[in-house]
């Protein structure tokens, strides 16, 4: 019954999204929604490893950027179509995630977090020195001609991002509610005990890091066409890594819908703030919300709702 409800809402969201591209002629919504959805995929991906498995990834921007530069490189070299680019970014970042997974064999906790940060910085230096994709100077990526069944390219990108966001959420939901999710939760709580209780910890961690990497890469793949000019500064932007952590933290890391709620809320606030108040305050909002939530509501919005329901239930009962 519950499954039906989820897939039904997926269907409704996708149809509504498609109808929106046909009805609305206000491109602004497509642009802002694109950015929010990009954040959502990153948050959902981060949470598969961070929230479910308990390994903090500080280098989300690195995975994102590898996705971005996969597109840049393959587009420049072969002019491949977007779906192929997405797939390639997913595969390459998935492999990067797989490598990160093997890193967890030796590195736990904070060490793993620092290793991801260092990896992102090494990747950035490599891209800075990789002339083919423009190096530190950046490069232009022109939007391809033609936009499939859509009126213009941004509608195509919007719809693509919507599908990807839904897919990412579905993957995250599958991982958390299946036996894999149980195993990941056990790893998060105590890896040694999990292994001794028969949980194939390495295999599950590899699944987790690979899924995270692939999703982050896919989130980055369409980015060059969105901004048309890519340089390492924008691809490796710190704010990408910060949002990927802040969104799940604010929404709630324990369940699949936590990062979705966090991303929609924080993303909407950020986008609104961009067009209403100054962006300095925008960054301040992220910082203050993050600090407030983790000090006062460590389980995020989801936790708040659960507590409220519990209290209500206790009062009624």
């Amino acid at each position, binding site marked *: 019954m519950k499954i039906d409800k989820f897939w039904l809402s997926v269907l409704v969201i996708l149809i509504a999204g498609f109808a929106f591209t046909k009805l609305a002629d206000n491109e602004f919504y497509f*642009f802002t929604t694109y*950015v929010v959805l990009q954040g959502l995929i990153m948050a959902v991906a981060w949470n598969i490893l961070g929230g479910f498995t308990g390994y903090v990834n500080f280098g989300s921007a690195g995975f994102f950027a590898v996705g971005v530069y996969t597109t840049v490189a393959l587009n420049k070299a072969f002019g491949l179509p977007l779906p192929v680019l997405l797939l390639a970014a997913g595969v390459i970042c998935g492999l990067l995630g797989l490598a990160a997974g093997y890193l967890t064999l030796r590195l736990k906790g904070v060490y793993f977090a620092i290793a991801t940060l260092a990896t992102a910085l090494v990747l950035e230096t490599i891209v800075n020195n990789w002339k083919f994709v423009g190096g530190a*100077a950046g490069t232009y990526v022109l939007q391809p001609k033609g936009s499939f069944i859509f009126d213009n390219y941004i509608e195509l990108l919007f719809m693509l991002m919507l599908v990807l966001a839904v897919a990412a959420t579905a993957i995250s939901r599958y991982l958390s509610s299946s036996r894999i999710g149980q195993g990941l939760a056990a790893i998060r709580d105590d890896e040694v005990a999990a292994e001794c209780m028969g949980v194939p910890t390495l295999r599950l961690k590899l699944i987790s890091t690979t899924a995270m990497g692939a999703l982050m890469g896919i989130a980055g793949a369409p*980015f060059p066409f*969105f*901004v*048309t000019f890519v340089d390492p500064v924008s691809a490796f932007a710190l704010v990408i890594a910060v949002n990927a952590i802040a969104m799940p933290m604010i929404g709630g890391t324990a369940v699949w819908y936590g990062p979705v709620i966090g991303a929609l809320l924080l993303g909407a606030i950020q986008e609104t703030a961009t067009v209403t108040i*100054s962006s*300095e305050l925008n960054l301040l909002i992220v910082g203050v919300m993050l600090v407030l939530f983790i000090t006062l509501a460590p389980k995020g919005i989801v936790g708040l709702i659960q507590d409220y329901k519990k209290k209500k239930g206790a009062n009624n009962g």
Partner: protein
Amino acid sequence: MIKKVMSPLRIIAILAMVAVVAFAVPAQSKNLKIGFSMALTGPLAGAGKAALIAMQIWKDDINKKGGLLGRKVDFVFYDDATSPSKVPGIYSKLLNVDKVDLVVSSYGTNEISPAMPIIMRKGLVFMSLFGLAVNDKFNYDRYFQIMPAGPIPKDDWSRGFFNLAMAQSPKPKSIALLAEDADFALSAVAGARRHAKRLGMKIVYDKTFPFGSPDVTSVMRAIKAANADLVYVGSYPGGSVGLVKAANELGLKAKMFGGGMVGLQFAGIQKNLGPMLNGIVNYDFWVPEPTLNFPGVKEFLKKYQAGAKGKGVDPFGHYLPPYAYAYLQVLGDAVTAVGSLDQKKIAAYIHKTTFTTVVGPVKFAKNGEWAKTRTLQVQFRDVKANNIGQFNKPGKRIVLYPSSVKSGSIKYPYKQ
């Protein structure tokens, strides 16, 4: 007299009238709206904020003259936080939600380029502020860029430096090239590299260094060891300061040193570096030399300097702000001359006209860049320690190039 007591009915009637008047004024006011995104936070905010002050001065000036096409000019602008990914959203908001009448660009290549696809689709005239060769890729015939780089921006940028060098005797034979790892600096040095090859110079050092390196002493030492006649550097404020200090500390002995160092144009940095600057030949766009005293620029700077107080931006406003004023001046003049907001006609007018602006006469080439380069090469002279006021007066930054605005001749080699 008889005291008149207002009856409740009358109050309601008055309120109703107020309401009618209020609603009768359409939510879309008749003001002419110019929309843009600007880097008000993030790495480029220093320039973005200064540009905004200049733009608002233009708005006040034009409104005092009765606005554009008889309509008062309003700005609608958002902060892009120097983040390219925010730019497309902002321009779509400006065009679709705010329904602005005209658009101009944010500051810098990274923030201009992401707006191009939207602007092009709508066929709008796009005045741009300090983008480096953005139109090389887009080839959009309604794009106009105000930075006086010249028709071949990447090469014209450093042309002056090399023209000066080749006029000296003995002619310099070798060159060291150094760039900080980010777009502008790399492009500037790439241009310099082409000039050096064209002129048959020996390139004895050619490296880049990471953006924001804390210490560049080692880099400067390697350059000094390479013992080149010319040292051409493309760098950002942090790197520029470090390199100038290191060059002094280590006693760099090149004949010419400078080129594309961003930051040496700003008063705060000039004050800190003081006499260390002497002899450096670097690019600039506007300095208070008599040869650049174009009509209106003095008045503009007076207003700017008053407006900049306490805003944490450059106090004098030499380098960028006059151009931020001028790119609106060009657009305003064109709209006035065409007499409508017909984008095609405006673009055609801008293409064929030489504009009189606070940065002098401006004529655009086919690709939307200045038809002729006016990237200045200035040399620091007689700079005293710890004195900021000296930079607001002539004589400290001598214009060596181009000859049309030359205010003095080069001291060569740069340090005895």
